[in-house]
Each structure stands twice: as structure tokens, then as C-alpha cells.
């Protein structure tokens, strides 16, 4: 793993361009696949306590992209990405143990100093965006979302069982369906908070759910 400052500037756009054709012949499907793989990497690095999950995920994708652009054939991209991610994590651990940098200290201070909870103004802005995005959600999905998240404890579990039975779905299937709605909402709220308006109703993606 290169020095942290260098790692932070890894051009994930180049990796994206190199990886895309290997993931799917269709560009849109390949882009969704790329985002899913990146989401997996974020979960992988976060679970292992990596300090910089975003940077390590991009470093992993960059390495895979470079191998592909060098003409290496990769039969199973998912497994290959996992193998590279494990190497990147090990290198990061060794690097931090042997060569602590000012970034480590500054990062530690920044993490401790960062507020763990948003301000009242941020909460109000978030709730306003959420209300706007809920309005943009198809009525059927909005109702489903409200029902799914209503209640606590045992009552919540039972209400979800009733809801699944009403819809004729297995509980796992209902859970995945709500997960995908929630993903879209979360992304839409993020866009709204960044000043990017949600144009028109929030329709499902054409492919499977994804987490950036």
C-alpha cells in the first residue's frame, strides 16, 4: 500500500474504466456491478476495523483495474477482488504498524474530534429531505415502508410477519424488498442534502439493489 496521502488520491475513475468491460457487456449493468463490488469492499474493510475503508476499497479496485488493463485474464472477478482486498488490508496493517505517519495521528485526532451526532439544524434538514423523498416514492412503497418500520420489539416482529403474509411473501423476500426501497431513499436523501434535486418520482432501479 502506498503512503496514505498517495492512497487518498488513487484515481478510482481509471479503475472504473478498466473494470467496467470485465463486469458486464452492458455499460449500465456494469456500473451497477461496480457499485455493488465497491459496497462489498466497504463492508469488508469496515468490519475488519480498517481506518480508511473508502481509500482501501479504491486501492483494491485500482489494483484489479490495473491487472485488467495490463491484459491479465480474470475468470472470477468477485473472488479475485476479495483476494486483492485481503492483501491490501494486510499491507495497510503492516504499513501502519511499521511506519506511523502524521496522517495516522491527525486521522485519530480528527475521528475523536468529529461530532458523533448531527446538529439540530442538520437533523431538520435531513427530516425535510426525507419528507420530500418520501413524497416522491410511489404511494404503495411509501405505505409499505411505514408499515415495515412501525412498532418496536416483539410487536415489530409480529407486524412484519403479518405484512409478509398479507403480501404473500416469505419474510426474507419482504426484507430484501424493503432493503432496496430503503437504499433508494437513503441515496435520494443524500442527493437532496447535497443540493441535488430528486427529479420526478423515485422509481426502482432496473437492476438489483446497491450501496455506494
Amino acid at each position, binding site marked *: 500500500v502506498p503512503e496514505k496521502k498517495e492512497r487518498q488520491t488513487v484515481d478510482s475513475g481509471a479503475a472504473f474504466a478498466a473494470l467496467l468491460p470485465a463486469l458486464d457487456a452492458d455499460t449500465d449493468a456494469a456500473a451497477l456491478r461496480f457499485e*455493488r463490488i465497491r*459496497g*462489498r469492499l*466497504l*463492508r*469488508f474493510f*469496515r*468490519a*475488519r*476495523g480498517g481506518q480508511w*475503508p*473508502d481509500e482501501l476499497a479504491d486501492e483494491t479496485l485500482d489494483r484489479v483495474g490495473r491487472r485488467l488493463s495490463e491484459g491479465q485474464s480474470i475468470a*472470477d472477478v*468477485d*473472488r479475485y*477482488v*476479495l483476494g486483492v482486498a485481503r492483501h491490501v488490508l494486510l499491507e495497510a496493517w503492516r504499513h501502519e*504498524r511499521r511506519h*506511523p505517519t502524521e496522517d*495516522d*495521528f491527525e486521522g*485519530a*485526532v480528527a*475521528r*475523536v474530534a*468529529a461530532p*458523533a*451526532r*448531527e446538529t439540530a439544524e*442538520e*437533523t431538520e434538514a*435531513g*427530516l425535510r429531505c*426525507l*419528507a420530500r423523498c*418520501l413524497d416522491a416514492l410511489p404511494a404503495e412503497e411509501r405505505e409499505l*415502508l*411505514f408499515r415495515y*418500520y*412501525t412498532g*418496536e*420489539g416483539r410487536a415489530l*416482529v409480529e407486524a412484519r410477519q403479518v405484512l409478509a403474509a398479507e403480501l404473500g411473501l416469505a*419474510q*426474507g423476500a419482504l*426484507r*430484501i424488498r*424493503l*432493503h*432496496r426501497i*430503503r*437504499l433508494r*431513499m*437513503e441515496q435520494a*436523501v*443524500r442527493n437532496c442534502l447535497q443540493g441535488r434535486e430528486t427529479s420526478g418520482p423515485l422509481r426502482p432501479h432496473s437492476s*438489483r*439493489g446497491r*450501496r455506494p
Partner: protein
Amino acid sequence: VTDARDDRRIQYLLDEMSQLDRAIFEDEFFTSDDEDDLLQAAEEDLIDGYCRGTLPSARRARFEERYLTSPEGRARVAFARWLMDAVAERQGVPRKVRRPAGPRTHPAVGWAAGLAAAAVLAFGATFLVGQLRDAEGERDRLRDTVARLQSHASEQDRRLAAMARDLGRVVSQAVAGGAGDRLRSATATVTAAPEAAASEPQRIALAPDVAVLRLEVMVGETAAGSYRGALRRDGRELWRQDGLQAAAGPRGTSVLCVIPAALVTPGRYVLLLGHDGPGPAAATELELRIERVPASR
């Protein structure tokens, strides 16, 4: 969490698995979109559980280490809270009353809560005749205040613990990098033998100008290899270090723990020392009592 398989996913997300189980699970979710979806759904349940205050304390701590230390993680927790607020608002529950999901009650706030509750009761009794509505309003405001105090105190707790861990790591790195030569240190030897563990706390005297405590833990003749150590006070972890190497010396095998003295104010501590490696390991617990003595100049 809905079933054993979900609990396995949560174990993965919070790094509670053995190395082998983790590798198997990673193969599953990296190669199966269905398993990846279920992992994401479990992650959402985990975040919701944190926001509702239903996670056990150990998991709550692990969650906070992983999710509250990055902007992306904090954004996800905030979204979960907003979603709960929106759902509750739709049911007509006022927002200020339904946000008690503070992680845990700080002892000091427990007193404050008791006093506030007593104040509410007294206040309510005074105004029972004719002014019940005002009393309820005041009670709600006090509850809100208590909830804010709880949230603030537990947040301070979390930040102090995180700061202590980071400080410990940074000082350890500085010492490993050679800065230890320029810092005043004190060396103390303690014994990790079972008979010592069962006896009175082992006393360590520290002068106020000492910056680094070099704790030499005698682990016995047969205990070579790599160790992990942790120092706790009142159940809170103040310092942790993996990869501590046992070294043979004239008095037996010992493990050296280099601990920033700023972390140890006078009081009782527990030092946990166990063999390094994947999975749960049996650890020796040593009770220590830190005492301050005048500077030795």
C-alpha cells in the same frame, strides 16, 4: 436480529468471528448477491438496533468504533434516526418524547434523572388541581432535558474512550519509533501467575512527571509467543495492544506493555493478557493499583 444466520451476519459486521468463519463468510457474500443483500439488510437492522438503544453494551461499543468514526457511517446512523422519526411522526408521536434511545445511562445522569423525576413528581403534585396540563408540559421538558443529558454524557463517555485508545496507540507508536528515549518512563514488574492473579492488587507507584509506564509482566517459563494486552478500568478499555512479544530473561519470560502514563490516574485497573491469535483466547486478569508518588528529582 431475527435468527441465527442473521446473528452470524452481525458477528461478521462487528468482527466477532474467528478467522476461519470470517474467511468462509467473506467468500459467501463476495460471490452471492443474495447473501450480500441479506448482509446489507442485517446491517440496516444493526443500525436501527443502535438507534433504538437495543444493542447489548459490548456490541454497542463495537458498533460505535466502526460506524461513528467515519462520515459515511455517521450519515447512515443519522438516516436511520430520521426514518424512525418520520415513521413515528406519522403515527402522531411527538418527536421530543420518543427519542430516549440514548445508548446507556451515565451514572451521573442516573442521579440527574432521579432528581428530575422527583422534581417532576413534586411539580405535578403542586399543580394537580387545575393545572395538570402545565405540569405535563413541564414534565415533558424535563424528560427532554434528561434525554439530552444522557445522550451528551454517553457521547462524552464514548469520545473519552476513543481518545484514550487513540492516545495509547499514538504514544505506543512514538515509543516504538524511538521517541521513548526522550520521554521519562517508569518500569514496574508484575506477575501473571495464577496465585498472583488471585491475591491483592499489585501496586505500582508513578511519579507525576512519568510519561510512559513500562509494565513488565512475568508470564512464566513456558509461555513464549505473541500476546495481546488490554488495560481496563470500571469495565472501560483504556489501552490495547496486539502482537506483544514474550522475551526470556534471567527472571523468566516476560511481556513488556508500554502504556502512556496519562491514561492511568490513581485507582484500580485490570490488565488482561492473552495469547495473540484468531478467535477467543483465554486471558489472564491482573488487578493493579496505581498510586501517585512525588516526582523523583
